[in-house]
C-alpha cells in the first residue's frame, strides 16, 4: 500500500482538461487547477453548464425550410461544460432537450492510484 502522505500530491491527467488529485480525491481543471468536486462524483456537477443552440455553430443556409442545414434546437442542443475558474470548455454533449447529461467517467480511484505509480501518466502540481 502507498502511504497517503506519498501520494497526496499526485495528480493524474484523465482528460485533456481534467485531472484527479489522488490525495484529496477531487477533480481539478488542468488549466487553472480549480477544484471541480469529489472525484467519485460526476465532474460535470462541478462545472458551469450551458445549453447552446447548435444552429449558432451551423447556421441555416436556406430560409423557411424544414431542412435548412442547421440542426433543429427542438431536437438537439449542445450542452457545454465550462471550468468555473477559467472558462475552458471541458466537455460538450449533443443531447435532445432535457435528456440527462451522461456520467461519462467514473474511475476506480484505487486502480488509478496503482496506475499513478507509472510516471508517464502523472506529474507533480
Amino acid at each position: 500500500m502507498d502511504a497517503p502522505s506519498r501520494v497526496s500530491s499526485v495528480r493524474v491527467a484523465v482528460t485533456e482538461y481534467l485531472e484527479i488529485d489522488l490525495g484529496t480525491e477531487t477533480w481539478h481543471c488542468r488549466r487553472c487547477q480549480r477544484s471541480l468536486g469529489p472525484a467519485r462524483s460526476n465532474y460535470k456537477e462541478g462545472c458551469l453548464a450551458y445549453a447552446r443552440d447548435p444552429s449558432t455553430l451551423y447556421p441555416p443556409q436556406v430560409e423557411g425550410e424544414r431542412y435548412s442545414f442547421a440542426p433543429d434546437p427542438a431536437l438537439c442542443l449542445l450542452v457545454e461544460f465550462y471550468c468555473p475558474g477559467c472558462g475552458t470548455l471541458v466537455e460538450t454533449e449533443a443531447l435532445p432537450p432535457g435528456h440527462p447529461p451522461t456520467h461519462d467517467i467514473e474511475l476506480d480511484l484505487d486502480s488509478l492510484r496503482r496506475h499513478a505509480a507509472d510516471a508517464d501518466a502523472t506529474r507533480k502540481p
Partner: protein
Amino acid sequence: MGVDRATLLAWIKPSPPSAEELAAAARLAPGDCEIYSEKLNAILDEAADVFVRTGVSSMLHSGDLVVGIYDPAGNMVAASCGVYLHAVSAQLPVKFVRSHFEDEPTVGIHEGDIFYCNDALYGGIHNPDQIAIMPIFHEGQLIAWSCAAVHQPETDAVEPGGMPGSAKSRHWEGMKLSPIKIGEHYELRADLLEMMENFMSRAPRMQVIDVRARVTAADRIRRRIQDLAKAVGAPLLGGLFRKLIMQSETCARARIASWPDGTFRAVSFADTVGATESLVRAALTARKAGEQITLDFAGTSPENDGPQNAFAHIAAAHVAIYLYAYAFHDLPVSAGTFAPLDFVVPEGCLLNAGSEAAVSQSVYACWQMLTLTPIVFSKMMYAGAQRPLVAASAGNNHTVPFVYAGMNQWGGKVADLLGYPFNGEGLGARSDMDGVDCYGFPMAHTGLGPDVEDVETETFFLHLFQNELIDSGGPGKYRGGTGVESALVLYHMPRAVVSSMGATTRVLIGQGLFGGYPPPAVPGIHVVGSDALEKLGAGEALPRDFRELAEKRAIKGQYRFERTARPSRMIGKGDLISVIASGGAGYGDVLERDPSLVARDVREQRVSPDAAAEIYCVALDPGSGEADLEETARRRAQARQARLARGKPWAEFMVQWSKQKPPEDMLSCYGSWPDAKPVRPVVRL
C-alpha cells in the same frame, strides 16, 4: 432452424485451443511466427488484389471488402481489410457450417466445396454483405478456411440498392441465403448461380460476376495456403494460427490491464428510422476491470418496425472497426483481440431485435458505434500509455450512401451504390492533430474513392462538382477532418431510380471529445428539372458548391431540401441530386486552436471566415489573411468571460434543463422518455 442469438455472439470470441494446436504453437522455431505471419498477410493482399480486379461493383472497387484466413474451428487468424466488422462476422457462418453440416450426410465438408451466405440470422450483417467460404484441405485433413466478402448493392429487395429504407420486416429484404454449398470439386454449380441471377433481376450481371469474384478471392487464398502447407507442413500452420490468436489475446489483455479501472459511458442520437422521423438513442457503458471489458448497450432505444435494427453479433462486430484501427491497431488482426471483451446487448433493443425484424440498414443502427466506441475507449486510455491513440470519432453517419438503378447508356441494367462519396468522410481529430480531411470510409479504413470518370462511363451521371465541404469538420483545438460535397446530374438517359440512406438530418449524431464539437448534419438537395445541361451546352457557369446551390440557386429548377434518407424515386434527365460525406468530430476547446491553423483553414477554404470569427474567435488581418494574435487573444478572453457569465451551476442548470422535452411526435421510435425503454410491442406481418 437457425442459430440462437447467444451462440452467434459467443462465436465472435475464439474457441479454446486444442492440445495439438498448443503443442504445435510451442514447437514453432524462433522466427517462424514472424516470417509466416507475413506470408499469410502477403497471401491476403494478393487475394484482395485479385478480388478487386475480378469483380465489378463499386463497393468492391472502392476496397470495402475483406479476405480472411480462419483456423479449422472457424476462428479468425488473419484478415486484410477493408471492413474489419466482416472479418469478425465471417467466423460465424464458418462455425455454423462446422457445427451443423460437418456430420450431415446430405451436406458434409469436403475438399473443393464452396459455401455462400448473406443472412444476418446466420452471422451475416445485412443482405448486401455476401460472403464466399471455402474449406482448405491438406492430405485429406481440414487445415483452414478462407473467406471473401464484399457488400453487393442489390439484393432483390422491395427497393433497389439492397438496403431498403421502407422495409418493415425481413420479408421486404429480398434474397436471404443461409450458408449453402454453391460449389463442389472446385466448380460452381450452374443451377445455384442461375438462382441468384434470377433473384437479382435488377442487376444480374453484377451478381454473377461478383459471386465469381468472391469465390476467386477465397480460392486464391485456398491455393496459397495449400502451397504453404506443402512447403512447411500442416502442423506448423496449425501452431502458427493458434499463436497469432494467442498473441493478440495476450497483448490485448496486457494493454487493457494498463488502463485504470472504471465505468465509461456515451450516448448518441439519430432522427431517422427508415421512412419514419423519430429520435432514437444508442447507449454504451464500458465497464473495465483488470484485463476485461464489458460493453453494455442497455439504454439503447427499442427495436422498431423499420430497417434500422440489428442483432447482438452485428453490434459486437461493429466494435471491431474501432478496435483493429485504433486501440489494438498494432496487434495481429485475429480473433484473440475479442477474447477480453464481453458484450451485453439486451433483447428487444434495436441492436438485438426479433428474428422477423428488418435489418437491411443494420449498419445504420450500428453506425452510432462509430461515435460511441472512440469516446469510451478514449476516456479509458487517456490516463495510460495509449494517449496518442485518443481520438474523436469520424463522420458518424451524416454520410449518405447513394443508390441508383436503371438502364445505362450502353443498354445494360445497372443497380449500384456510389462508392466515393462516403469514401471521403473526414476523420476525427486526435489528441495531437487534426482529423484527416477527406479521409475515407470510417467503416472500411482502406476504402478508396473509385474514379468519377469510371462511374460516368458506367452510368448515366455527370458530376457538377466534388469538393471538400467547407465547415464540415467539427470545430475544436484540433479540427475534425472535412467531408465531401458532390452534385450529380442525370445525363444520357431520360430517367433513373435513385435513393439514399441516412440516420439524421436535423440532429447531430456525432459527439466531440474533451470540448470539441460534433460535425454538422446536412440535408439533401434535389433540383427537379434543372437547367444544368442547357447551361453546360451553352458554356455558361455552373454552381461550384452547396452554397451556390442552396443560397444563390445558381441553376434554375424546382428546389427540394429534404432528409438525407430518401426513399426510392424516379428522377428525370437534368435533375440534380446532392450527395455528401460527413466531416469528423473535433477535439478540445476551440479557443485553444492555434490561430495560424485557423488562418490556414480559411485560406484553404476548409473553414469559412464567419466560422473563424464566431466559433474560433480568431481575428484575421483583412489584407494578409494572417491571424492577428493580439486581437485574437483579446476576443478569446472575452469569449471565456462570456462563458462564465452564461454558464449556470449544475443544480440551477438542471432545474431548467429537466423541464424540457423533445416534441412527442419525434419520440415514436425512441421508447420511454428519457430512458428509452420499450413502450409498445412491434408487430411485423
